[in-house]
């Protein structure tokens, strides 16, 4: 397994976020995205998740273009964004069971996943009764409930206590040891063995020059 991007560019609205970004992540690799707020970490993760089509460049999985078979790409990734995607009316186990079942027809290891984030006792509690940190852990345990080789995590440690951050680090390391890949954006350094770092801010888009600007020659 090898996940790579070449010459990636991203445009949101009419603003270019980054351009000419390359990365190459082998099996078991961890890519940590850094950069100040607004530098495009979340946008890059959304591009990698195929939620947002790249404005330029190409993503490949084992040398094959991801855009050629987007459904296969979606089946092999877990994306954890800023939203928790939890329904307050459903119990923790019901929430998790739904996502695991959607990812994997046979259903997933819901109770095992809850256990690993220390939520086993809360399995039958409605999510509206959980604290913010517990909701965050429940949301993260979704990625453990069904297997997928590629994890894309956007600020996974926000709102977690020290113990849960260690659990998260251990789960990421276990996932990598099994050959999985992780791309994560974080401001809080996580203790991961030989991680690759990528500063999104190092790939600024080319400034708009008079030649590129269709309005530059306008007469007003």
């Amino acid at each position, binding site marked *: 397994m090898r996940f790579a991007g070449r010459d990636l560019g991203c445009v949101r609205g009419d603003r270019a976020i980054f351009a000419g970004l390359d990365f190459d992540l082998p099996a078991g690799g961890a890519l940590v995205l850094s950069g100040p707020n607004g530098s495009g970490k979340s946008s890059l993760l959304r591009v990698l998740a195929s939620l947002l*089509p790249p404005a330029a460049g190409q993503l490949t999985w084992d040398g094959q273009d991801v855009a050629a078979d987007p459904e296969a790409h979606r089946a092999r990734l877990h994306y954890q964004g800023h939203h928790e995607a939890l329904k307050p009316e459903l119990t923790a186990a019901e929430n998790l069971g739904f996502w695991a079942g959607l990812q994997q027809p046979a259903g997933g290891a819901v109770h095992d996943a809850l256990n690993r984030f220390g939520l086993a006792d809360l399995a039958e509690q409605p999510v509206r009764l959980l604290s913010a940190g517990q909701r965050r852990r429940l949301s993260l345990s979704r990625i453990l409930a069904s297997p997928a080789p590629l994890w894309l995590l956007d600020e996974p440690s926000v709102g977690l206590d020290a113990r849960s951050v260690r659990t998260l680090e251990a789960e990421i390391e276990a996932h990598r040891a099994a050959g999985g890949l992780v791309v994560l954006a974080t401001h809080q350094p996580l203790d991961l063995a030989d991680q690759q770092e990528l500063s999104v801010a190092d790939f600024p888009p080319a400034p708009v020059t008079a030649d590129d600007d269709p309005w530059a020659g306008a007469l007003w």
Partner: protein
Amino acid sequence: MQETAVDPAAAGDPGPGLLRGFARVVARDLRLALRQRGDALLAVLFFVLTAMLFPFGIGQEPNLLQRIAPGVVWVTALLAVLLSLERLFLRDYEDGSLELMALSPVPLPVIVLAKVTAHWLTTGLPLLAAAPIIALMYGLPAEGYGILLAAMALGTPTLSLIGAVGAALTLGARRGGVLIPLLVLPLYIPVLIFGVSAVDAQMAGLSARPQLLLMGAGLLAAIALAPWAAAGAVRQAVE
């Protein structure tokens, strides 16, 4: 060179997987609707209460009420569906569920169709069940009931399907709930026209078959097109 690696998630029979994904989304949405009954009840209550208002406004001549009964049932049912459309996608959009659904291996049109099915079961079906009560209040002759229900059974799923496109297109727009009726109402007019004229034809002693066939054709076309259109709009919204 072009050999594809065997992917554990992609392996296996895709057919039952699709069906299972569909069933899971329907079951989840029904369970959510059951846990917050207020939302689903609102549409039916609106339907019954609005229909009850007309006699107060226009007087209680039996002949007049009888004549306008199909129209009142259809117009109020249509407005009740409109009222419920915003909740079809909005909550899932706001809490990030929709973007995870767009990333799931189950194709998005299948998920959209499942959500529309659940919407119809919690909105259209209760309206269908409440329609005879209103017809009774308006003194609709007995021979009209069967056709009214048949027309509603064909028409309300069409309303949910078309509405899903409008609801998906307005995701992310400010005051999207206000935009939905503007987008959707013009497309509801054919359903309204044929739904009312089916009952009128029956009461005039004519066959309602052509109207019902047309409504069936409309439903089939909506099933074939609306989930793809709505899925495209959802993909735009979660970009």
